[in-house]
């Protein structure tokens, strides 16, 4: 009854072409941002921020990245974990070589390195299509992962062979390293994610997004429309890897606070992100968030939520249960709604628009 566009007349094309043409949606977004920036930092404890919100945001960013490549451009990739790694190592090198520059700048800049590597591994995509492209991205995944371990220069010859995140200040407050509070890290991360989501939304709603989707839906027709396939695909690889790279840098610097490539950026990470995109909905930005929320929060909820209810389960059992549940849920969701949570979201909104009438 309250959610509908009746009475909201659009008198210009600009207002019709807005990303959120319905007033209630815009209000909703404002409320969500308000909760995100003010409510959660005030009310959520450190534990909640560190184990729920920060992972969720990092994965959302990575899922947006993969969604641009797989959902919007139709190129299947199993290398997003490695591209995240490129971002993390680039950020680490940059901030240890130039410690004076603000770390947030380096986190975002590290995306460009990931983008460059992404373009290199995207080159075969002109000739190789469909499932065959998985091999190219797997080559990226395993080769890059190998490089992270074999090139000691990347981790500054640390004896541990891992990234050791140094302390960096942001506006005088420690943002990375052991002294940074979850609230600071969360707020900066939320800022980065909000900004990059806005950019992604601009891209996919304009000419570039249309040409990506055209390539996805019918590449031959797209080419006959004057879209050059290789540049369009490479741009998708670049933008996608950029997002994954920034997500990787955020993961290392704002969440893990240090770690090793084979743990953080392995093939399982790539799978996880692919799940998020599929469960969330291919070709939908909001789906990336829904998918990331679902898959990153589920294991945490099982691990901490069930014992909180008074049912004690050993850690290993919880882990197995997570796997089983995750697998079953993936199959369940695919059967119920192959187009992901984003489609359910849309159907829900449609119902709400009609409510209380059935049609």
């Amino acid at each position, binding site marked *: 009854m309250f959610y509908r566009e009746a009475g909201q007349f659009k008198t210009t094309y600009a207002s019709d072409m807005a990303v959120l043409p319905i007033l209630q949606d815009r209000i909703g977004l404002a409320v969500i941002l308000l909760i995100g920036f003010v409510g959660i930092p005030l009310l959520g404890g450190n534990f909640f921020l560190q184990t729920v919100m920060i992972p969720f945001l990092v994965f959302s960013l990575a899922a947006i990245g993969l969604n641009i490549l797989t959902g919007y451009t139709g190129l*299947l990739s199993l290398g997003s974990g490695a591209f995240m790694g490129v971002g993390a190592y680039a950020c680490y090198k940059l901030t240890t070589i130039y410690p004076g520059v603000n770390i947030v700048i380096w986190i975002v800049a590290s995306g460009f390195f990931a983008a460059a590597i992404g373009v290199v591994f995207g080159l*075969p995509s002109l*000739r*190789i*299509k469909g*499932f*065959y492209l*998985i*091999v*190219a991205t*797997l*080559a990226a995944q*395993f*080769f890059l*992962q*190998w490089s992270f371990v*074999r090139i000691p220069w990347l981790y500054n010859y640390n004896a541990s062979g891992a990234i050791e995140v140094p302390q960096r200040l942001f506006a005088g407050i420690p943002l990375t390293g052991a002294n940074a509070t979850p609230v600071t890290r969360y707020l900066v991360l939320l800022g980065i994610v909000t900004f990059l989501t806005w950019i992604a939304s601009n891209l996919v709603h304009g000419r570039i997004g249309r040409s990506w989707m055209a390539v996805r839906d019918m590449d*031959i*027709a797209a080419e*006959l429309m004057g879209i050059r396939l290789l540049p369009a695909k490479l741009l998708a690889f670049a933008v996608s890897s950029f997002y994954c790279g920034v997500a990787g840098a955020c993961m290392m610097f704002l969440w893990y606070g240090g770690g090793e490539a084979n743990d953080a950026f392995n*093939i399982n990470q790539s*799978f996880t992100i*692919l*799940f998020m995109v*599929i469960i969330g909905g*291919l070709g939908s930005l909001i789906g990336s968030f829904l998918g990331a929320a679902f898959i990153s929060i589920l294991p945490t909820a099982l691990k901490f939520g069930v014992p909180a209810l008074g049912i004690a389960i050993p850690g*290993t*059992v919880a*882990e*197995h*249960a*997570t*796997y*089983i*549940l*995750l*697998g*079953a*849920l*993936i*199959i369940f969701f*695919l*059967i119920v709604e*192959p187009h992901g949570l984003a489609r359910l979201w849309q159907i829900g909104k449609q119902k709400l628009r009609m409510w209380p009438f059935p049609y």
Partner: protein
Amino acid sequence: MDLIYSIFVDPFLQMAGAPDLLVQTLWEGFVGGILYALIALGFVLIFKASGVFNFAQGIMVVFAALTLVGLYEKGVPAFLALALTIGVMFLIAAAVERVVLRPLVNQPDIILFMATFGLTYLLIGLGEAIFGGNPKVMIAEQLYLPKGAVDIKMLGGVVTLQKIDIAAAVIALAMIACLSVFFQYTRIGRALRAVADSHKAALSVGISLNQIWVIVWFLAGVVALITGIMWGARSDVSFALQVVALKALPVLVLGGFTSIPGAVVGGLIIGIGEKIGEFYWGPLVGGATESWLAYCIALVFLMFRPQGLFGERIIERI
């Protein structure tokens, strides 16, 4: 200059200098390749007959091997355990058809592909919950698989062949031959090929899709079991195998997804290529190249033949 020498000249001098080592490396690559081909074969069976890219094949191998060893550890005699495991694989096939495939008929390939991802997670969770996550030893002796090694004196050195490797190669080749005959000359084989071409057309001539799917998933399960036994006998049975199973992907891509001989040739190229590459060129870049070399070999082939070695040439129409 040194670099060029060490890349283009030195490895070949090493090969010529110690031909017995070369033969040993080739043999190991050959056996590895056969085992990759076996995993790929499971993929090919299912892809041929249902168009589903079954990501769970790797975990099916682990699961089958775990079930066999697990049953034996519970006190079931070896061959009874083998029969029971085959039964379990049939149950899995029937369950997959009923719960996963049937509700997803006519969905896009990517959706079915993702569903097998879900299956992978399900099987990992189940396998670990039932059998535990620790590596187990394959019951090779109880199944009368040969043990030990034969040394062959040749080319001024000794080449050691593990008997289990020889057995693996023989069994694998026999199975590949059987499956080729089955596909080509039996009624079910023809129905399988028909289903692969078009679900709807196959249905319209009275082929039962559900039955066919149970059959191929069961066949793939049996292939997985044999692969699991062979692989388990060479190393041990653990979930680490699952990452190895990913290498079936470049093998498939080389072989062209639907071709049984393609899977074999692809497996051999990858198996031998990565062993030779690691042994002679690996040290130049710091070793452990086996994790990615297979994919790069496949990638190079693909750049020249995007449809794989045995795939049909793609003619684009509009």
